[in-house]
């Protein structure tokens, strides 16, 4: 039997069904609008496949917030319990392991191939809409492009677009070409047929190299905004030699890879060996993709070299790749407990994307403008202040101690008792240490003030927590 299976696997690398599993997940997500609460357990299914090292690879979004992960093998009755070993939410890749050796019996790890070329044929494997049987669909590679990854919401990497049917449940399944995995199905377009996307092998490979040292660090942030150099006047003004090309550096994010290396006005002509065209693209096989891809494929700490035209002179500069921790504010978050502070019925939370999404689908229109400024513009306008955490009054749990307050929820807390608030922990400490009679809050934007009787707020804290079912007054 074993021999037969091996033979089967060896002979027919083109038939990977036995290495594809259905991933069934029971998960419990936090309710970011009531940050001490978890939603009731729900379940979901995706796909996965065996790779080298005994790992089962799937999408991070399949196993996000998982409490139990079960893997169901093709034509095997009993499911196997798996655990998530590494989860890269920024690239939507995760790997799992199963303790029970029986799981691996007869499974052949699938190998990765290179980035597929446009117009070549690919086959997807997985469990669309759940189901018991592996399903496969065929299509062609429509194009290679740079696109936002929806699971994170705050990251973009290379993707491959295909017309092979990719449906809910396909997530995490392998995309197959010439006996190798060239990518992993992961997202589609709402309302668009025949457009599916898979994570191409270079992005998966970044994840695989990243976890080799036992830690997942994630993708680096170049921290760079550039403009294209289509304008002939701009080329002359930057003294770009004829026949050369590049992009002009417009702004630099503090703490990113190029911070302290590049300057606004520099012409970035190449990254590593990839020459940058005037439209900002580099050549990748038979595709043109944004030069960000070259920065993107570096591991955190790995040096990246840049060819730069500065003041008319060409220079080579090198910098270690860095990751911006504050980028998490722009991402959807998983497997973390929401942070909050309850004081006198006032619920404070840090400003991040998860908070904004609690305001509803129209949050861009409904959030106070100062909130949007902090979220999207502050680091460019006030780079020295880029890392500061902003605290928002998310809601008021009504009690007589606070019911006469008039400020709107959603306001940014500027100061407490005259102290400029620098984060949730700072706010908590300031309130804890207040020896005055009142806690006086000043809010940004409206410039409104409100006050709590400090002793009264403390006296009713336990009652408010009991009334509103809050297990802990804070998670800082």
């Amino acid at each position, binding site marked *: 039997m074993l021999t037969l299976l091996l033979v089967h696997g060896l002979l027919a690398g083109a038939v990977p069904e036995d290495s594809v599993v259905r991933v069934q997940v029971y998960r419990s997500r936090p309710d970011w609008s009531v940050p001490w609460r978890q939603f009731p357990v729900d379940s979901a299914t995706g796909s996965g496949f065996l790779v080298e090292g005994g790992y089962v690879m799937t999408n991070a979004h399949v196993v996000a917030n998982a409490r139990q992960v079960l893997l169901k093998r093709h034509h095997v009755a009993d499911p196997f319990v798996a655990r998530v070993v590494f989860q890269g939410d920024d690239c939507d890749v995760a790997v799992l392991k199963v303790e029970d050796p029986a799981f691996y019996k007869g499974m052949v790890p699938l190998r990765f191939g290179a980035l597929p070329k446009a117009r070549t044929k690919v086959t997807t494997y997985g469990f669309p809409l759940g189901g018991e049987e592996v399903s496969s669909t065929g299509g062609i590679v429509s194009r290679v492009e740079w696109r936002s990854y929806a699971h994170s919401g705050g990251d973009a990497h290379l993707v491959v677009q295909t017309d092979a049917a990719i449906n809910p449940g396909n*997530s995490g399944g392998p995309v197959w070409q010439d006996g190798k995995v060239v990518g992993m199905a992961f997202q589609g377009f709402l309302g668009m047929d025949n457009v599916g996307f898979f994570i191409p092998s270079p992005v998966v490979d970044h994840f695989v190299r990243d976890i080799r040292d036992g830690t997942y660090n994630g993708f680096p942030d170049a921290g760079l905004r550039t403009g294209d150099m289509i304008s002939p006047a701009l080329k002359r003004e930057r003294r770009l030699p004829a026949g050369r090309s590049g992009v002009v550096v417009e702004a630099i994010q503090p703490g990113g890879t190029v911070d302290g290396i590049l300057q606004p006005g520099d012409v970035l002509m190449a990254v590593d060996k990839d020459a940058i065209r005037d439209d900002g693209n580099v050549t990748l096989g038979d595709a043109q993709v944004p030069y960000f891809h070259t920065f993107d494929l570096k591991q955190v700490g790995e040096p990246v070299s840049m060819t730069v035209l500065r003041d008319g002179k060409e220079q080579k500069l090198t910098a270690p790749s860095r990751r911006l921790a504050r980028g998490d504010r722009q991402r959807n978050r998983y497997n973390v407990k929401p942070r909050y502070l309850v004081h006198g019925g006032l619920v404070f939370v840090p400003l991040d994307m998860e908070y904004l999404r609690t305001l509803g689908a129209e949050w861009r229109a409904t959030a106070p403008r100062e909130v949007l400024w902090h979220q999207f513009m502050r680091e460019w306008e006030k780079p020295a202040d880029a890392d500061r955490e902003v605290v928002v009054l998310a809601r008021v749990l009504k009690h007589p101690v606070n019911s*006469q307050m008039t400020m709107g929820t959603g306001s940014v807390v500027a100061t407490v008792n005259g102290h400029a608030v620098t984060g949730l922990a700072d706010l908590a400490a300031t309130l804890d240490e207040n020896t005055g009679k009142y806690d006086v809050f000043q809010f940004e934007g409206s410039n409104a003030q409100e006050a709590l009787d400090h002793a009264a707020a403390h006296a009713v804290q336990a009652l408010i927590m009991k009334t509103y079912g809050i297990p802990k007054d804070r998670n800082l």
Partner: protein
Amino acid sequence: MNTLLTLLSWAFPLVAAAAPPPGAPLAPGKAVATAGVPVPAPVPSSNGLRKSVVSIRVSGQDWDWRAPWSKQGPWMRSYTGVVVAGPRILVTATGLGNATLVEVQKLGEEKRYPARIRLADYEGPLALVDVDDPAFFTDLVPLPLAADVPVDGEVQVLRWLGSNQFEAARANVRQVRVEDHGMSRTGVLTLDMTASISEAGRSEPVVRQGQVVGLTTSKSDDVLLAIASPMLRQFLAAAGQQPYRGFARAGVAWQKLVNPALRAHLGLGEKEGGILINKVLPHGSCAGGVEPGDVLLSVDGTRIDASGQFDHPRYGRLSFALLFSLGHLPGDRVKADILRAGTRQTVELTLRRMPGEADKVPAYVLDHAPEYVERGGLVFQALSIPYLGTFGDWRRRGPLPLLIAQDVQGSFPSADAPRLVVLTAVLPDALNLGYQDERDLIVSRVNGQPVASLEAVKAAFDGPPPASGFHIVEFAPGQSMARMVVDAAELPAASARIQELYGVN
């Protein structure tokens, strides 16, 4: 059981692909409906009133804020006016902006007399209309404006319904309150009525016992609002003086002071009222006297309660905004009692009016063309609400950097930063190749010089040619582009070409 696949939805469009046609402030007025409209039973004794009520037909044309050198298609609106002493015609000003022709009709006659807008104050919003032909006022009788308005009871709403059909419809006063009307931001005394007549709110006079008690401004559902006659009287009196002074406005953002903890913290007694001033607009009546963080206790000797209302002897509790707009004129000095950092003091305020263009981001721009500067196909405009209006539901759909700038700076003009300059479009040409998709970028500098007005943009482009040979336009940080380069030597020839191609003049 859910199955998983993250679904991408379309990104929120920060920039609309194609500008929707800018909406006129009001829908073009339909000629007053005749057949088919149920006419309420006429109120007796309306016969004499028809000699005081006239129809006003206004044609106008708004500018195209996407192409500020051109105008949109013309519109036509109908209003009702009331004959007042002079004789002149008093009408609300909301729909008169950008008028090209004003005509009046009387007594249901078909004949239209040319008329002129003598004075339009969009912060009333009220206007006076003159008719040069003295024959027009023959047979017409001015109506007196009531010194006070009723707080309840029945009133009549007067208008001509097409040819020779006069309507005196019933309305019932619910309340007298303070409200701003149309595009105005100035709170004025307002008659709040219920009425079942259709399509009212176009300046119909509201009459009781032969006297005008208000001019309507809007109707939604059954609620009809009118500017109350004390405001009309003050407007007429002000219109008789040179220069016209208008209506004063406090120019503050404030909050109620109902939270006992906050009151105690500020040093206020339980029952003494007062509101907390959050912001003081530099061009408003409170500037120079009141500061953010002050508690405003009284204005001109009238106490303000904790929710921002004062006790009017006749109308009850009304918003304190009326203490600025009624009974005093801009330029008057009034005393205000404040509590500042625990100390009570009296400050003197100089009242000011705040017309739309006094804001840093003008709330409205009427009766003159939008200002713009076009150099080498780069179109610069001062940010304004009418410009934002080209995005349709602009509070939701406008570009975020513009919305933030409007929100944070729009009400705070200053001498060194009177306007926010925006590159609103690039008219494609070889000169600006590479930049043709850029628009809606807040400009910070041109050729190294800070620009906070269109004059500064003009000066930077038209001054001595830059030594580098390039004009450099820099944009405020955080936007999609930081810097734009235009060849200075090629600009003059290109400008002529571009102006011809795009009809810029």
